[in-house]
């Protein structure tokens, strides 16, 4: 019997739902009303906001208590993150540490690393970046050239990483490097190392994106010394580590909510006197959104039960990103005549960031390749 990709229906348990009201209350209080909300996880950052979130116990909330976490379920975290995004909270500072670097250290890190970093992430004191892409390495991650050469008590790092969001303000970067020369097995000989972004030999240069913002960077290493204890887990384990990060990275609400505020402002704009055309459009997009969310929650349920549904995760990201790209493009044509400043600003902001939606975390072409593999085509 043909088995396509399976998304079993899954309902967020009451314990997860029960946190929702508290998060909404907090956001109502803490969000700066003078800043136009933006549901793109990469479009706003505030260390102050992240620290307040930390004080509520909502960073690293799924991690064990011994490392400062709250031992909450993955599904409770799901509710917190989707509420943050939907409200357009500035989550940029802690986002990667909470979603990716912390779980990575929990799974692969040494005891010393867990003790040193996790409590600080939970407290909102340490923010992390991802160091994977390089100037000549995008989708083909195994072609990285940044090298770590063994030296007394550690490694000497040379090369450069690119598109590293918030490297100029964050504290550390988990960096994928080649710790052995490239061999026939392209996936062997790679390691991940924790780089202190304040090290004076690490040079961070901002890159302006097309929206005029400098949130991503190129990071250069010139004989940067990395002590042995900053190698994540064991040397040579890098490829396995980055692959395991992707399931969590690809199926979350940030993969279909980036354009959500456009939908909200559209609803505000059509207000009390919508045409059938506008209602149909709002209905169409809402039907997409609700369905995507149900799929994403289905995967969250699988992750919670210990499965690693990487094909399903890739599919959510691809479908979700297509939705995010579609929203501003069709909504802009549905508000004829004089639109409000607020609507236009939200729309334009989304259009300017939209090209990044289908690039970050795996391009749509790579994702479709993963799905095709899941279908047995490759």
């Amino acid at each position: 019997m043909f088995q396509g990709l399976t998304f079993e229906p899954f309902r967020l348990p009451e314990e997860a739902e029960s946190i929702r009201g508290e998060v909404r209350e907090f956001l109502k209080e803490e969000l700066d009303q003078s800043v136009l909300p933006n549901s793109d996880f990469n479009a706003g950052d505030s260390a102050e906001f992240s620290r307040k979130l930390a004080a509520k116990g909502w960073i690293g909330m799924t991690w064990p208590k011994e490392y400062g976490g709250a031992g909450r379920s993955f599904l409770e975290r799901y509710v917190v993150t989707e509420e943050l995004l939907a409200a357009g909270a500035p989550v940029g500072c802690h986002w990667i540490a909470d979603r990716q670097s912390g779980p990575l250290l929990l799974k692969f890190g040494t005891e010393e690393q867990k003790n040193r970093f996790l409590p600080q992430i939970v407290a909102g004191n340490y923010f992390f970046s991802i160091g994977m892409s390089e100037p000549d390495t995008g989708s083909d991650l195994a072609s990285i050239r940044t090298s770590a050469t063994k030296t007394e008590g550690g490694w000497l790092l040379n090369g450069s990483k690119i598109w590293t969001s918030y490297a100029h303000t964050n504290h550390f970067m988990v960096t994928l490097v080649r710790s052995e020369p490239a061999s026939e097995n392209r996936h062997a000989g790679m390691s991940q190392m924790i780089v202190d972004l304040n090290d004076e030999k690490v040079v961070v240069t901002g890159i302006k994106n097309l929206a005029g913002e400098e949130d991503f960077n190129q990071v250069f290493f010139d004989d940067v010394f990395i002590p042995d204890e900053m190698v994540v887990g064991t040397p040579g384990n890098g490829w396995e580590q980055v692959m395991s990060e992707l399931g969590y990275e690809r199926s979350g609400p940030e993969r279909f909510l980036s354009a959500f505020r456009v939908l909200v402002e559209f609803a505000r704009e059509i207000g009390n006197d919508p045409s059938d055309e506008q209602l149909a459009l709002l209905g169409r997009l809402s039907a997409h959104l609700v369905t995507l969310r149900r799929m994403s929650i289905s995967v969250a349920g699988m992750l919670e039960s210990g499965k690693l549904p990487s094909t399903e995760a890739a599919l959510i990201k691809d479908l979700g990103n297509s939705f995010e790209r579609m929203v501003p493009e069709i909504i802009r044509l549905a508000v004829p005549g004089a639109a409000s400043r607020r609507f236009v600003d939200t729309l334009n902001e989304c259009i300017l960031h939209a090209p990044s939606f289908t690039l970050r975390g795996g391009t749509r072409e790579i994702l479709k390749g993963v799905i095709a593999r899941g279908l047995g085509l490759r």
Partner: protein
Amino acid sequence: MNEQQRLIKETLHRLLTDLCGSDIVNQAEAGQFPQKLWDTLTETGLTVAGIPEASGGSGGDFDDSLLVIREAARFAAPVPLSEHFMAGLILSDHGASIGTDPVTVAAGDFSIDEQLRLQGSAENVAFARWCHQIVLVARSTSGLKLCRVNCADVEIVANNNMAGEPRDSVVIDVTLVPEEVFETDDAVLNKIRLLGAVTRCMMMVGALDSVLELSVQYSLERSQFGRPIAKFQAIQQQLAVLAGEVAASTMAGHAIVSSFDQLDELDIAIGKARIGESVSSCTDIAHQVHGAMGYTMEHSLNHRTRRLWSWREEYGNEREWQIQVGKAFLEGGADNLWDTVTNRR
């Protein structure tokens, strides 16, 4: 899907593989009712699952009936499973029962007078010519009445949808016995509309999944330039899009099944809008992958795609349901839009 449903699904597949091949679908299109298929499906008791036994149902769970409707559509089964299930539910609501002979539902313009003379007509009555009875709603001076009419007493003009499925015109002028007339109200009309949409959603999900399966299979079998076309990135990317749309449709279908007990109107509206929308790109990709072969009557892809093009129009196309969804999401105002989203569990 639980273990029991998995078992039901496997049993159905064996049964449908035996009794509902392309030849049966083609013969039905040429006018022949697949009696054996109908009898065998009815004997499983699954076609009226969830309807109380006192009303002729087999008890159990609605999920099973919806599963049968979905899986039968995977095989383009040319039998009125959906209509029979709908009629069974409506009759049971009114204290009446249903048998094993197929019964359909008509939505048209009917009136009934005090002598129980029923007059009126309806278009697009599914499978009327093969059914034993028709269930319909008629106006009267004392409110709406639910009526059950023997097809033998009805003038039926054969008409087909673009999939070659009977969608007949019926003209009725008959005096009913009191046992076939039931008091009802406005709610029944909406219930028929919702049940019609639910069953079309199940049918589309089944057919869409089959379209994906056929396309994947064909791409692995068909070679060009010395290798299976599945090995070309252009084809892989198309099939990935198809898989995404099918997965989304399946999930929208699951949501309807989960809330079927309450017949959640918004979940149904979301489902009919979302699943109906996917038909366009899915059939486009499936036919492109199948090339000219898929454009022939001989290849069974058309049994699915022509049905999808028909079913997305039935009981309200995407636009009608999108407007309903749009109204529901606008109701609480822009700042409550998110709350409406998260209330969809």
